[in-house]
């Protein structure tokens, strides 16, 4: 009982996992790659924010959103608007017919900065907008959907539609948004040239640090009861509801949080890549981001980061050689992952690599492998072994239905209760 009362924020393995990721991101990668490649990794890491949000929202909460690009884009555009206004001072835009407004507005015969662009001159406003605007948008979608009990595949389709609408809106309002080209030619942040090599290195570190903050925040949520309620909700929504929880509020919360993460990723993207365009908002990028999460393992916070890096690295290699085949390869990868190892790389790691690691890795008393079984440390069997045990037990009644008959001898119609398999 003493032990049960002190659930730990992280298990030994998780601490080691975070330390390893920190070493890779903050030391190995920056020391071994040139600035161009480092910047590329920094760009990949911005997608990891989205994948991380999806782990919470989809992996834990069971809410599949196929429109995370919308929030990534909103965050990115908020950042881009600030940078663009800074780059469009009257001096450097004096050849335009209306100096002092962004170039694409001038090209579209707009002679005055729209009122809703005006506040983006202020960095504090832009930074708050990056976090709050997409979260607010997610909140509105969440309230509209989850309060009406729209879920599962219908929710996925609606988020996809929102991604499509958003792209069309941005492209259609060319004069206000830069259209299909997006907002380009971003130069400085408060006078600091973000295109220089030193800026790229610094931004890479800022991005990594922000990612770690989001990771730890997610870890905190998972460790609190909220994290377990999300898992419970995914398994048995009705049971949670009839245990006195307003399920919709929990869904709205986790959806907003994932939107906020995506938006921070989007803003970091704009800073590191130097532009933002609708090609990061629509359906294809949104689905790609789900694939990063699935490949890494939708139940693994760290897996999301590795999955994102790996898929993007493969994308870079592959699309340099066979550019037109990349999308097919990506689709094949997604199908293969979902069919062969639905919990992604993280589950492969748990099954094949973890057992081979030396004893100090798991510690003497910990042994808490499976992420969601992390209750206490009093028994070693809770965790990976138990999970595997479960798989064995669960698979048995399916292959041998006759054993079930003995389990539920009373009435035939209730047999399904005996084979309860999720």
């Amino acid at each position, binding site marked *: *009982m003493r032990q*049960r*009362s002190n*659930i730990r924020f992280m298990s030994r393995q998780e601490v080691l996992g975070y330390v390893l990721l920190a070493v890779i991101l903050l030391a190995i990668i920056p020391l071994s790659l040139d600035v161009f490649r480092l910047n590329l990794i920094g760009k990949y890491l911005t997608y990891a924010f989205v994948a991380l949000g999806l782990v919470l929202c989809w992996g834990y909460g069971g809410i599949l959103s196929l429109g995370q690009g919308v929030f990534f884009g909103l965050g990115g555009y908020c950042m881009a608007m600030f940078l663009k206004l800074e780059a469009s001072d009257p001096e450097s835009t004096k050849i335009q017919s209306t100096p002092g407004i962004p170039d694409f507005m001038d090209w579209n015969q707009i002679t005055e900065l729209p009122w809703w662009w005006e506040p983006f001159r202020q960095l504090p406003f832009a930074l708050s907008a990056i976090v709050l605007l997409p979260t607010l948008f997610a909140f509105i979608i969440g309230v509209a959907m989850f309060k009406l009990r729209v879920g599962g595949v219908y929710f996925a389709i609606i988020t996809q539609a929102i991604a499509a609408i958003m792209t069309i809106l941005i492209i259609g309002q060319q004069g206000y948004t830069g259209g299909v080209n997006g907002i380009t030619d971003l130069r400085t942040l408060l006078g600091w040239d973000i295109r220089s090599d030193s800026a790229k290195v610094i931004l890479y570190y800022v991005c990594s640090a922000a990612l770690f903050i989001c990771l730890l925040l997610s870890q905190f*949520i998972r460790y*609190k*009861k*909220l994290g*377990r*309620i999300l*898992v*419970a909700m995914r*398994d*048995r929504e*009705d*049971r*949670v*509801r*009839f*245990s*006195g*929880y*307003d*399920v919709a*509020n*929990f869904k709205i*919360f986790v959806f907003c949080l994932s939107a906020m993460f995506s938006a921070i990723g989007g803003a970091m993207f704009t800073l590191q890549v130097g532009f933002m365009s609708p090609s990061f908002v629509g359906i294809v990028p949104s689905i790609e981001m789900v694939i990063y999460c699935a490949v890494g393992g939708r139940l693994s916070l760290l897996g999301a980061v590795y999955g994102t890096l790996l898929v993007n690295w493969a994308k870079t290699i592959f699309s340099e050689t066979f550019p037109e085949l990349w999308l097919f390869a990506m689709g094949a990868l997604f199908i293969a992952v979902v069919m062969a190892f639905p919990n992604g790389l993280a589950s492969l790691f748990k099954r094949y690599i973890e057992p081979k690691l030396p004893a100090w890795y798991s510690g003497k008393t910990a042994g808490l492998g499976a992420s*969601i*079984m992390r*209750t*206490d440390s*009093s*028994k070693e*069997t*809770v965790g990976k072994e*138990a*999970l595997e*045990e*479960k798989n064995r*037990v*669960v698979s048995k009644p399916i292959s041998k239905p006759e054993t079930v008959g003995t*389990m*539920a*001898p*009373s*009435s035939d119609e*209730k*047999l*399904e*209760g*005996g084979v*309860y398999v*999720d």
Partner: protein
Amino acid sequence: MSTKHEDFVLAVEGLTVSFDGFKAVNDLSFYVDEGEIRVIIGPNGAGKTTVLDLICGRTQATSGSIKFRGEELTRMKEHQIVHHGVGRKFQNPSIYDDLSVFENLEISYPRGRSVFGSLMFKRDREVIEEVENIAEIIFLQNDLDKPAGLLSHGQKQWLEIGMLLIQKPDLLMLDEPVAGMSVAERKKTAELLNRITQGRSVIVIEHDMQFVEDIAHRVTVMHQGKVLSEGSMERVKNDPKVIEVYLGH
């Protein structure tokens, strides 16, 4: 509100629900007393489960009223009904397979039920003691750390009953609690129910007549969405209408 309602824990009056014109429950009325174990029996499709769905808010009534301690339930949301003290067990064991038995019970502990409440929720001594206490009642004190998915069917049913008990409901509704259980498990469950009904009212849906005899104070027989007969098991068993539609064949 008439004073009559105050005498009952639950007063269902004129309850009707129709699905596309089909009246699954038709002008149903019944009353449950304080501390009573009421068993609802009836042939398949009589509307038994629908009645529980209506009481706990899962299904919206077309007309009629459900008063729990004088408060109208038909306009409340599911979680609000739970907060008022109504607990519901589903027909198939409905537990969280991926969480441990301890966590299953902890989630049902009636504290920190809002989003931020659940972020601030602390697993303190009070929670742990209550969970261990309940685990002992439902015969699972040695399985607290086991993932619930590993429990046997009967144990899952008990766990779900335990998840309701920890909410301390005033009215407990159980839908076929012994379905799929072995004879030994049934006996244990009957014992369990008799023990936990101290100080609360219980509505049970059950097909197993032996089990019904063991636990019921009063029996309501439903047929085609209506009450066919009501009273002690003895009386109901000898009611010719009941024999015709349900017992005698």
